[in-house]
């Protein structure tokens, strides 16, 4: 098929061709127009959208403004799947009925194709009984039910764990080959695109920046923006320079060992956390986990969703009460059931969603000042000065200080929450998926900022992420959790090179990788598998 499109202001002059069985990756930051373009092809834009353009599909020409014609293509010709698998299915409907609505044929082969080894098991399940990965597989089966010739996948694996993502990517590739079905795969993750796609289109601000075969685009990028994107991908620290700027050799050669020398700032000793489930049973979210974070050290906490990593971190700051174990900070035992205000100053927490963490009505500088107000530190002028100083430190422009969170970008907002956490000069910082919701280049800048701050203040950082490449980039040591227990721990470099547990090996193997970067821009990547 061929596609050329244009819509009011989100997109400009886009054109590409796609062969049966081919997989084209569309890469770009949020707001680059990739989703808008896909919805335009599938005729799923709201009626208010002005779409212009032509699509040649299996020899026939369609106007993209003709919603009715596009609607008639959906199902048998074009199908689409989306990012959030948990909300993609009807909560009142079993898997069997989902498929029965779409095809009169048996659901078995479809589910097998979508990657269920035993389809009979899930037939009578309801969406809430399945994991995110299973839901996405069912959504894929639904999309394939009418045997479309083109599947549009809009970030279908972004919300999933790496191992699950790897399985789904493999399935999609196999389906494309078996059925000769073309796939348009939208992602913000270059490594995913590289792993799956034959061709890649890089988009920015609604326009194509670069297009070509996956190999060419990623190994010999022509556009500056593509190079910038590739350079922003997190890489193993032992070999990678700081992400955002080409920096002095001293920083590249920063020895990783120095940081772990400090004495422990946060000790979690044999922590267990138990919950009571809605039906009255006890559920151990965390079982006997011990983690130390030294001064000036960044410790990564890795695990799939449900592994208990956030629960452990919340226990460390007293947001959940551990059922057993001891927490100590800077050598003092801390019991959050009888908290002292000074403890709260020493440990700060940064959440995943900065929008939710900031008061939508408060001005940035006032919100950053707030911890000082709460702890009654200094007079009003001093507090303001400290808040401004912290905001400068996080490289936030002073024109933004008086703004409200809504007029800031996601990255700027996360800088503000980091600045706020730093106002009280904490010794320990907990980052709970703090960069996961950000675009790669912004994520890179925040990671650099965290590294800088760590060096400057000898911060102890507990860095939680499901993204191994980020962990690999930023952390000195890594702790791997699964089902509430600690299964492996070690120096980042060692652990990634030589994981002892098979689960860790699977995690690392599932990690999508970029091709070795062109030497002119980045030093050769450490072979880490």
């Amino acid at each position: 098929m061929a596609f050329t499109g244009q819509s009011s202001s989100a997109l400009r002059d886009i054109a590409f061709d796609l062969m049966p069985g081919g997989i084209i990756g569309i890469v770009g930051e949020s707001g680059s127009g990739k989703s808008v373009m896909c919805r335009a092809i599938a005729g799923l834009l709201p009626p208010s959208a002005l779409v212009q353009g032509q699509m040649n599909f299996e020899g026939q020409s369609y106007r993209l403004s003709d919603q009715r014609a596009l609607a008639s293509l959906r199902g048998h010709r074009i199908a689409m799947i989306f990012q959030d698998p948990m909300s993609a299915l009807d909560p009142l409907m079993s898997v069997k009925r989902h498929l029965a609505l779409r095809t009169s044929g048996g659901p078995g082969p479809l589910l097998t194709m979508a990657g269920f080894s035993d389809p009979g098991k899930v037939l009578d399940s309801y969406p809430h009984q399945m994991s995110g990965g299973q839901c996405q597989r069912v959504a894929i089966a639904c999309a394939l039910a009418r045997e479309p010739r083109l599947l549009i996948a809009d970030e279908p694996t972004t919300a999933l764990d790496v191992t699950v993502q790897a399985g789904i990517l493999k399935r999609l590739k196999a389906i494309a080959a078996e059925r000769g079905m073309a796939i348009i795969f939208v992602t913000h993750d270059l490594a995913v695109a590289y792993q799956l796609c034959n061709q890649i289109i890089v988009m920015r601000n609604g326009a194509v920046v670069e297009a070509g075969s996956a190999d060419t685009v990623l190994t010999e990028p022509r556009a500056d923006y593509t190079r910038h994107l590739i350079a922003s991908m997190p890489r193993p620290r032992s070999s990678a320079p700081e992400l955002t700027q080409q920096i002095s050799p001293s920083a590249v050669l920063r020895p990783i060992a120095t940081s772990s020398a400090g004495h422990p700032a946060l000790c979690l000793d044999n922590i267990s956390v138990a919950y009571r489930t809605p039906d009255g049973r006890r559920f151990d979210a965390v079982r006997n986990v011990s983690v130390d974070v030294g001064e000036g050290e960044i410790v990564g906490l890795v695990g799939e969703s449900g592994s208990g990593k956030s629960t452990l971190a919340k226990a460390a700051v007293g947001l959940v009460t551990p059922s057993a174990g001891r927490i100590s900070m800077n050598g003092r035992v801390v019991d959050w059931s009888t908290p002292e205000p000074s403890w709260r100053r020493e440990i700060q927490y940064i959440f995943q969603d900065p929008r939710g963490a900031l008061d939508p009505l408060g001005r940035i500088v006032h919100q950053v000042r707030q911890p000082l107000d709460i702890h009654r530190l200094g007079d009003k002028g001093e507090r303001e000065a400290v808040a401004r100083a912290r905001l400068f430190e996080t490289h936030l422009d002073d024109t933004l200080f008086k703004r409200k969170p809504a007029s800031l970008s996601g990255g700027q907002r996360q800088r503000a929450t980091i600045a706020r956490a730093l106002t009280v000069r904490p010794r320990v910082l907990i980052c709970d998926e703090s960069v996961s919701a950000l675009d790669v280049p912004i994520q890179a800048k925040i990671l650099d900022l965290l590294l800088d701050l760590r060096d400057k203040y000898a911060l102890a950082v507990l860095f939680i992420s499901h993204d191994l490449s980020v962990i690999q980039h930023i952390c000195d040591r890594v702790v791997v959790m699964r089902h509430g227990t600690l299964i492996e721990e070690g120096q980042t470099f060692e652990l990634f090179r030589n994981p002892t547990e098979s689960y860790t090996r699977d995690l690392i193997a599932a990690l999508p990788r970029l091709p070795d970067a062109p030497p002119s821009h980045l030093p050769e990547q450490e072979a880490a598998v």
Partner: protein
Amino acid sequence: MNWYLFRLGRACITILLLLTFSFFALAASGDPAQILLGPDTSQAAIDVFREKWGLNLPLWQQFLIYLDGLLHMNFGLSYRSGESALALVLDRIPVTLSLVLPTILLSIALGVPLGILSAMHRGHLIDRLAITLSVVGLSVPSFLLGVLAMYLFSVKLGWLAPSGYVNWTSYIMPVATLSTVGIATYARFTRSALVEVLSRPMIETARASGLSEGIIHRAHALPNALTPLITITALEFGHFVTYAAVVENAFGWQGTGALLIESVSARDFAVVQAIMIITGVTMILANLLADLSYGFIDPRIADLRHRSSRRLRTACES
């Protein structure tokens, strides 16, 4: 099983709270001896009256006697007529039900389709018209509507009997008056629920996999949007009983509502209490029934009831 017991226990506690509250609220509202016998009665007569009704006992003893009576289905005697309060109320209930049940049916039968129509044509003329109508329906007080209807159809046109039960046509005005609020409520609720469901990602997913709009609406949108109607109906039941009091009075129907108003103004404690308790218990039971019926409709709630290991996994994943 656990789940049923929990709901049932909660309903029992609510009923107990209701009983306690209705006793003390009425006890706090004034001395029935003074009100019933009038200001000129001699102290001796008042004392005799108090003796007779147990009003001279300490409040906690009165409360225990009251609870004990309730256990034996004894709601006390009407101060005015000396009859059993329960018998007085039970006598009136059929009249109220004969107004409320058709009202609920009519409200659902007209309100839900109106809401659906409105949501399907969101932002268009039909939608705006329906919204305007439902705002009018919700904001015009039912007594005013009743009086207006009576004036128009009975006084001016002479089509319908103005008050009391004559034949089936007597139902038309009171039920229509009561239903305006119900239709408006159901229409608004259905519309907003449907609009919300239609904006969910699952609808776009269904569309993207090629389902036609008709199937999407029938199989996905409506079941999801209409399930909460069960709760609304349980809640509305209480509202209708309340509104019925006003409408019964306006149209001269001898239902519980009319009895309530008479008894309140006469300080006939036992009768007011009996009405409060019966209405309250009915509402609590209606809500319990609604809660229980979700178990059959929504698989997520069904799983809460039947302990399931799958549920456990979902809980820790989310």
